[in-house]
């Protein structure tokens, strides 16, 4: 991970660590914090704790998003402190905010991935969102049925996705919530794929319909078990809801936030150390019983 971040994430880049609640690469976010990247534009449908931590660590200058919160808990306090003038600390500046709806953010990635100048959608009518985001515009249908709203393409410098497995070539397979990882990866100039397990290519090729991203567009494959904690990986481990609630308390206090970053990010050399610090028993407690998918047959045609 150290090498992947060093090689592909640079100061000033637009970075998309995607994953809707599921498979969020906290391991990548923490490594970016450790490497002290600055002035990043952070794109994500739901910034979540990973961006709250990156903002708290001073990595970000701008957010592109559609829902800003701690899912199931409440607010992202570090981000709020950079958003509400009354809460702004001395010497700090307000974050730039570029705001959409969920469908709009998905559409931005789709347009970027399909090399389209815009993505049309039925949203924003009579909402104040287009008034505060001039990039949300209307387009005239060529079939005489009026105008529809549109969002522009988003092509991040780097997309970072986490998944259950990939082969050495970076062919990524995923199940459970798919979010917009495929679209974000195809839209990005560079892609880092982080996985729980590296499998032989034969495992990938045995079920080609499960592949969401081909090695062709992946610049780095990182093997990082539990790399999505405190978010979850379907079938591997559960969401650490206790930590999501705990972060609400920590993040309300800048000093506590700093202390947490020191103990759990700066003072640890990598994700393996983070996992070791929690201990195997802790993750065992997050592991669900098995729920197998069953097997389908592709047929051997020769």
């Amino acid at each position: 991970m150290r090498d992947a971040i060093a090689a592909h994430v640079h100061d000033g880049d637009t970075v998309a660590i995607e994953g809707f609640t599921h498979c969020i690469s906290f391991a990548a976010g923490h490594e970016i914090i450790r490497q002290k990247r600055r002035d990043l534009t952070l794109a994500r449908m739901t910034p979540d704790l990973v961006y709250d931590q990156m903002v708290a660590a001073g990595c970000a200058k701008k957010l592109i998003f559609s829902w800003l919160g701690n899912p199931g808990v409440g607010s992202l306090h570090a981000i709020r402190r950079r958003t509400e003038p009354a809460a702004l600390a001395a010497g700090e500046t307000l974050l730039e905010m570029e705001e959409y709806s969920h469908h709009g953010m998905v559409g931005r990635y789709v347009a970027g991935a399909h090399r389209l100048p815009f993505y049309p959608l039925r949203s924003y009518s009579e909402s104040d969102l287009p008034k505060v985001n001039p990039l949300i515009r209307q387009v005239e249908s060529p079939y005489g049925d009026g105008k529809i709203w549109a969002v522009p393409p988003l092509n991040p410098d780097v997309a970072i996705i986490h998944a259950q497995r990939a082969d050495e070539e970076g062919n990524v397979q995923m199940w459970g919530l798919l979010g917009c990882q495929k679209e974000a990866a195809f839209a990005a100039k560079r892609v880092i794929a982080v996985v729980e397990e590296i499998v032989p290519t034969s495992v990938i090729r045995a079920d080609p319909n499960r592949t969401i991203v081909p090695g062709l567009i992946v610049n780095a494959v990182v093997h990082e078990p539990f790399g999505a904690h405190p978010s979850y990986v379907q079938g591997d481990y559960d969401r650490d809801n206790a930590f999501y609630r705990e972060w609400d308390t920590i993040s309300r206090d800048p000093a506590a936030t700093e202390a947490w970053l020191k103990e759990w990010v700066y003072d640890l050399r990598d994700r393996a150390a983070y996992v070791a610090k929690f201990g195997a028993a802790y993750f065992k407690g997050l592991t669900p019983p098995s729920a197998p998918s069953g097997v389908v047959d592709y047929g051997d045609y020769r």
Partner: protein
Amino acid sequence: MSEQKPASRNELMVVAAARALEGKRVCFVGVGLPNIAVNLAKRTVAPQMELVYEAGVFGANPARLPLSIGDPTIVTGSTATVSMHDLFGLYLQGGRIDVGFLGGAQIDKYGNLNTTVIGDYAAPKTRLPGSGGACEIAINAKEIMVIMRQSTRSFVSTLDFRTSPGHLGGAAASATLRREQGWGGSGPSVVVTDLAVYGFNSDGEMELRSIHPGATLDEVKSTIGWEIRTPANVPETPSPTAEELRLIREELDPTGAYV
């Protein structure tokens, strides 16, 4: 069965919301209270209801109460788990959602909602989560139900920011515009709070329909930032049944995290 504690106001709100879903087929679920109301409805008045989660799940069959909008329990055992592009494009915008559940920090008399900021957008007093899927749900779900606690801070005469359109400035204008612009939905139909249940009259203005047991008309009126339309006789919201309370307390929210 042992003596039950009387229903709390949150429980009254959840039960009233669940009952409003009777007979509905496809419901777009939100986190928190809507989540509990919808799961209660599926166990009571709407067993055939399909739960759709914006995270990308159709026909969810959660084995536990989902703690977040993307809880893994909504995936395992679901009918279909799809990309968010498909969920918002094929299911929501495609017109397959009967009821969308929304809440907000502010609502006005026409059911327009604010989930973006309190104060000025550029320099907000309070930064709220934003739209998420709310804006397109309000436009594309065939019908919108709102569930939120009421107070003079949340039931306001003027929104600080309109995130999701309701009946705009009134039903006539709203209906015309929704038709002309090809919106999929007809807007808000029911608002359920911790004190009462509201509908919308033919002008698209909110109207008191029933008051929860234990709440008074004065209390209701004093927690709304405009003169709420009130019929001559306001019935009382039917009380929760023992089974409804048991489901909430023992199955859906045993830790009392939400209700």
